[in-house]
C-alpha cells in the first residue's frame, strides 16, 4: 500500500464516521517522537497518545547527556516541536488508550482524552492563571523538591505549552478563570472518548523509575537529604528547583556527596534482577556536573561494577576519576541520619576484604534503576501481547526485526523493550518505524 497523502482518512465503518491513521504511537518520549517523525516524514499518518500533559518523556527533564555533556532539553525540544507541528501527526496529550481490538488488517482503537480544563487551542501560556491560583502542592516535574500551583503550565518547555488544572487539588475558587485573558479555562470540560481505526501500533511507553522507598534501609522519603537521581538531574538544570545544588532538608550547599549505584537494579530481592544500563553512566555524568556546579565538593561513587560499555563511555569514566571523583567498590547496608541532617553510610568495603565501614556525607544520591511499564498488554482486547521474562514487551525476532512483537502489526520502540540509553532508544525507534513502514506497504 502507498502511504496516505492526506493526514487523516475518514472511513465509514458500520455506518459511523471513524478516522483512520496508518499508525498509533503509544507514548511521546524520545522513542515515540522518533518513531512518529520517521513515519510521518515517509508520508504516513500518525496518531500519538501521551498520558502526560506534555510530550518529551524523561529526556526533557534531564540535565546533560553522557558522555558528550550536551544539554538534554536543547536536543529534545526541537524534536518535540517538530512532532507537535508535523502535519501528518495528530497528538492527544493527557490521554490514554482504553482498548485495541484487531479486526482483520485494522485495529479498532478507543482513546480516552481526560479533561485538562483548559482549551488547548486558545491558551497562550501567559501563566496569569498560575500567578492567581492560591494552591501550592508538590511539583511532580521537579520530583517534589518545590511547590507548584493547581493551575499551572507543567514545565517551561512543555509541548504543548498549555496550562492545566489539577482538579484533585483545586478549591474551585475561580481565580484562574477570572484572570485568563482569552477565557480558555473551562470547568465544564468532560472526559472524551475518541474512536479511531489504525493500521499499525508502535508501543513507546518507556520505563518507570524504581521507587526508592522499597529499600527502607536507605531512608528515602524519611531522610530529606537522601534523594534519587532524577531529583539530582533537576538540581543540575538551569530551571532547577533551588538556586544551586542544595540539600532539601536545610538548603545547605553540600561539601561531600555519595552515590549509591544499582539502587533497585541487579537485585532479586526487589524483583529486578537485571542491570538498568544507564545508572553507572548517568551517575558518572552527574559527578562531573556537580564538580562544575560546586567546585569545592567531593563526590564518592559506591558501586558493584562500573558498566561503561558504549562508545567513549570508558574514557568518560577515566576522565571523571582523573577529575578527583572517588570510586569505592562497596555494598551499602544502610543509611542513618544524624541530628544535623548529615548521613552515615554503612558499607561493606569489598576491595578490602569486605570489612564493614562507615562514612559520613552531606547528601546521598540513590542511582535508581529503570523498570518496565507492564500494563500495556491489558490494552489489547482480543490478541495477546506477550512480555519477556523481565516484564518488558517481548521482542519475537530480536536479531533481525527488533521491533516485532507477538501481535502482527504491533511494534515496540525504546525502553518499552528493555533498559537503554537515549542513542539506543533512537536506534530502536528507527528500526520499529522502518518495520512498521514495511508492514504497511505489505498490507
Amino acid at each position, binding site marked *: 500500500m502507498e502511504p496516505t497523502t492526506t493526514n487523516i482518512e475518514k472511513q465509514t465503518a458500520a455506518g459511523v464516521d471513524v478516522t483512520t491513521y496508518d499508525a498509533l504511537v503509544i507514548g511521546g518520549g524520545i522513542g515515540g517522537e522518533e518513531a512518529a517523525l520517521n513515519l510521518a516524514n515517509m508520508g504516513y499518518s500518525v496518531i500519538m497518545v501521551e498520558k502526560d500533559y506534555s510530550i518529551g518523556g524523561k529526556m526533557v527533564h534531564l540535565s546533560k547527556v553522557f558522555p558528550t555533556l550536551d544539554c538534554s532539553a536543547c536536543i529534545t525540544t526541537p524534536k518535540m516541536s517538530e512532532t507537535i507541528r508535523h502535519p501528518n501527526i495528530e497528538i492527544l496529550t493527557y490521554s490514554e488508550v482504553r482498548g485495541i481490538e484487531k479486526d482483520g488488517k485494522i485495529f479498532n482503537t478507543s482513546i480516552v482524552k481526560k479533561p485538562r480544563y483548559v482549551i488547548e487551542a486558545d491558551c497562550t501560556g501567559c501563566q496569569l492563571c498560575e500567578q492567581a491560583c492560591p*494552591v*501550592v502542592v508538590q511539583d511532580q516535574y521537579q520530583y517534589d*523538591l518545590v511547590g507548584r500551583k493547581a493551575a499551572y503550565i507543567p514545565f517551561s518547555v512543555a509541548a504543548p505549552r498549555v496550562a492545566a488544572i489539577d482538579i484533585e487539588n*483545586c478549591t474551585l475558587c475561580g481565580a484562574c478563570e477570572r484572570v485568563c485573558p482569552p477565557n480558555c479555562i473551562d470547568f465544564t470540560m468532560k472526559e472524551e472518548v475518541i474512536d479511531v481505526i489504525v493500521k499499525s501500533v508502535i508501543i513507546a511507553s518507556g520505563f518507570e523509575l524504581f521507587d526508592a522507598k522499597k529499600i527502607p534501609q536507605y531512608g528515602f522519603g524519611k531522610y530529606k537529604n537522601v534523594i534519587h537521581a532524577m531529583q539530582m538531574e533537576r538540581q543540575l538544570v538551569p530551571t532547577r528547583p533551588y538556586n544551586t545544588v542544595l540539600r532539601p532538608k*536545610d*538548603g545547605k550547599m553540600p561539601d561531600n556527596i555519595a552515590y549509591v549505584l544499582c539502587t533497585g537494579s541487579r537485585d532479586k530481592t526487589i524483583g529486578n534482577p537485571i542491570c538498568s544500563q544507564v545508572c553507572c553512566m548517568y551517575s558518572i555524568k552527574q559527578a562531573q556536573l556537580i564538580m562544575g556546579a560546586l567546585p569545592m565538593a567531593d563526590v564518592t561513587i559506591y558501586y558493584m561494577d562500573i558498566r561503561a560499555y558504549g562508545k567513549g563511555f570508558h574514557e568518560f569514566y577515566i576522565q571523571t576519576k582523573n577529575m578527583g571523583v572517588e570510586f569505592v567498590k562497596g555494598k551499602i547496608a544502610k543509611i542513618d541520619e544524624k541530628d544535623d541532617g548529615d548521613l552515615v553510610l554503612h558499607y561493606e568495603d569489598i576491595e578490602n576484604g569486605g570489612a564493614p565501614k562507615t562514612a559520613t556525607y552531606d547528601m546521598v544520591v540513590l542511582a535508581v534503576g529503570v523498570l518496565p511499564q507492564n500494563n500495556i498488554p491489558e490494552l489489547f482486547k482480543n490478541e495477546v501481547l506477550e512480555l519477556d521474562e523481565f516484564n518488558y514487551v517481548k521482542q519475537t525476532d530480536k536479531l533481525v526485526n527488533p521491533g516485532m512483537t507477538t501481535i502482527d502489526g504491533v511494534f515496540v520502540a525504546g525502553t518499552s523493550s528493555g533498559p537503554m540509553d537515549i542513542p539506543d532508544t533512537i536506534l530502536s525507534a528507527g528500526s520499529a518505524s522502518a518495520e512498521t513502514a514495511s508492514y504497511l506497504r505489505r498490507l
Partner: protein
Amino acid sequence: MNAKKQLTVTILKKTRKASESGKESIKAYMRMKKKILEILKEESKTIPEIAKEAGLNIDEVTYYLMSMRKYGLLTVANIDDDDEYYYYQLKQD
C-alpha cells in the same frame, strides 16, 4: 479579563466539592509565607536562621521558601562566610 461571561467554575461547583487537600495546602502555604516574609522584613537570613527564629521545621522552611522564590517573592543574596548557607531576601521592586 471578561466580567460578562458566567464563570464555568460555578457550574462545576454544583456537582463537585472544593478539594480538601487544596484547602489545606493554601492554609499551610499562607502560614509559612506570612512567617517567612515577617522574618525577612528587616534583613536577609539563611534557612536555619529563619527556622530557628520562627520555631519552624527546617525542611518545611526550605520547601516553602524555595516555592516563594519560584513565584518571585524572594531572591538569593550572598552565601555565608563558611560557604554553607545562602541568605535570602525579600524581592525589592
